[in-house]
């Protein structure tokens, strides 16, 4: 999974085909290419009755989509893993658990993924930066995780899919001690429960 602190800002439009959804980000163009064809097929299909040779690309495109839609169970599992990998962490301001606009956008994309995979369970981890007391930060991390959980549920995600755990300041993403590291470490992460 490729990580970026700006992930939330670069979510591409989601493409829905049946139950298949994909969320990608700008830092992950290769992964997006197979899942998100650039051209919409509908106008080309409309042109077919008149002249036969032209729609070849459209036909090809459908071939790409069909195997995914009628995938065997093993492939579906793999697909679910790919989608869960697209669940994106969110970040918080210092000593805050309020969701920023960016965080809410990210959570909306995460909610779309989770709603498409109703049998998958996800644990939301709340984390803090190293400043502050350890015990206070565990409580703060729990609030961050709960804030993310509550927002996902408000977007229609089944609460039964979600649980929370706080690690306080114990598991920094960036071991550094500056503002940049701290901003990275104040976060909630979404980890599929195996």
């Amino acid at each position, binding site marked *: 999974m490729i990580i970026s602190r700006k992930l939330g800002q670069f979510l591409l439009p989601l493409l829905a085909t049946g139950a298949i959804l994909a969320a990608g980000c700008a830092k992950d163009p290769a992964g997006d290419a197979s899942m998100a064809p650039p051209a919409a097929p509908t106008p080309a299909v409309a042109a077919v009755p008149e002249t036969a040779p032209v729609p070849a690309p459209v036909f090809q495109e459908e071939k790409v989509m069909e195997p995914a839609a009628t995938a065997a169970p093993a492939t579906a599992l793999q697909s679910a893993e790919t989608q869960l990998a697209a669940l994106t962490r969110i970040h918080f301001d210092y000593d805050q658990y309020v969701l920023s606009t960016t965080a809410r956008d990210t959570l909306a994309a995460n909610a779309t993924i989770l709603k498409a995979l109703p049998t998958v369970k996800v644990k939301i981890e709340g984390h803090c930066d190293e400043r*502050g*007391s*350890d*015990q*206070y930060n565990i*409580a703060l991390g729990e609030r961050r995780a709960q804030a993310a959980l509550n927002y996902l549920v408000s977007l229609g995600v089944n609460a039964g899919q979600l649980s*929370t755990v706080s690690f306080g300041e*114990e598991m920094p993403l960036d071991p550094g001690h500056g503002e940049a590291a701290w901003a990275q470490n104040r976060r909630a992460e979404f980890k599929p429960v195996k």
Partner: protein
Amino acid sequence: MILRHFLIFFVLTLCIAAEARSQVEISAPGRQLLPLAVTRILPLAGTARPELVNDFDATLRADLDLAGLFFPIPIAAYPDDAGQIGLTSTQIDFLSWQKLGAKALIKGGYTESGGELVVEARLYDPSGRRLLNGRRYRGKVADIRRMAHAFADQVLLSLTGTEGPFNSRIACVSSRSGRKELYLLDVDGQGLERLTEHGAIILNPDFSPQGKEIIFTSYRYGKPDLFRKEIYTGREIAVSARPGINISARYRPDGGEIALTLSHEGNSEIYLVGTDGSMRRRLTDNWGIDVDPTWSPGGDRLAFVSDRLGNPHLFTLDLASGAVGQLTVAGKYNATPAWSPLGDRIAFTRLEEKKFEIYTIRPDGSDERRLTDGPGSKEHPRWSSDGRFLVFSSNQDGESALYLMRADGSGLRRVTPPGLAASQPAWSGRW
């Protein structure tokens, strides 16, 4: 100021203890230190073991130095009596010690045979020509330092009326193994033992006031749960693994119940549970984060951290009435309160310019004092059982380590060896 209180107490105690017979007194209260002679213990029988004597002498001197009550008389000035084995009042040349100005004298002897060690240690009042305290310690050669700690505690008992805290243990969290595990060590940083192998994250230990038990938070089962461990049997159980967080647990001073932060009802609140984890009652009820309770010595009040007014501040709670009062008003981030066993002050940390410093404040919110300064963050202050000293963790030397200081912030010294990466100390009672 605290030192001055000690000294006044010290003088009074001495005068009372010595009654009319004793010549021991301090001419004026304040910063005057009691002249003390600490002679090296001498072999009573068998072969001399100078390395053992060195350990005993260094340990005893370090403890008495930390006490901050004594002026060590220069060894070069000691009279010939320092080398005389005589350990009874009739055998000691008190006059020569009096001439030197010694107000207290420590003499001792030892016998080592096949790894078995006996140490005799005596505290004398040269002016009164009498024994103030005599102790005989029997054990292994490896116990020599702990014997010195135990005698230092007795010296403080005899001269101040309150036993010292040196024969005790400090528990701490160390990431030396790659994971945060619990360790146990002596107050001089020696005798390190690892207590846990959870392979997870362990935090925030607290000693049972009775018996050698310790409670702590562990992520052994994937989330922060409260565990209790018997140190010598190794027996260990999860006493509170309620949904959410089970953190910042503190034994009530009588050991009967535990205050801790739980979130199983949705918000982090402070609760009272039995030592088996059984629910007694909820103590706080507020939308804010309530953590880090610390008990008053009487067990009737708690100080704790809450962000109910926006930033983390200290509050006190009266358990009988439920009344909550704000303790700190200064600073934007106050944390980790620790109520002195003497009851008169509460130590805590305040975030200032991106690092924590240690403060104390009276339980009524008055007389706030800053104890630490200089580089690095200082966190997790905890009191010795006699309220004389504080242990805390700091990264002031570039790595996390434990430090001791007196209750007034003086006498700072590092406890833990390089490489231990120690933090979050707890100080046991008398071991």
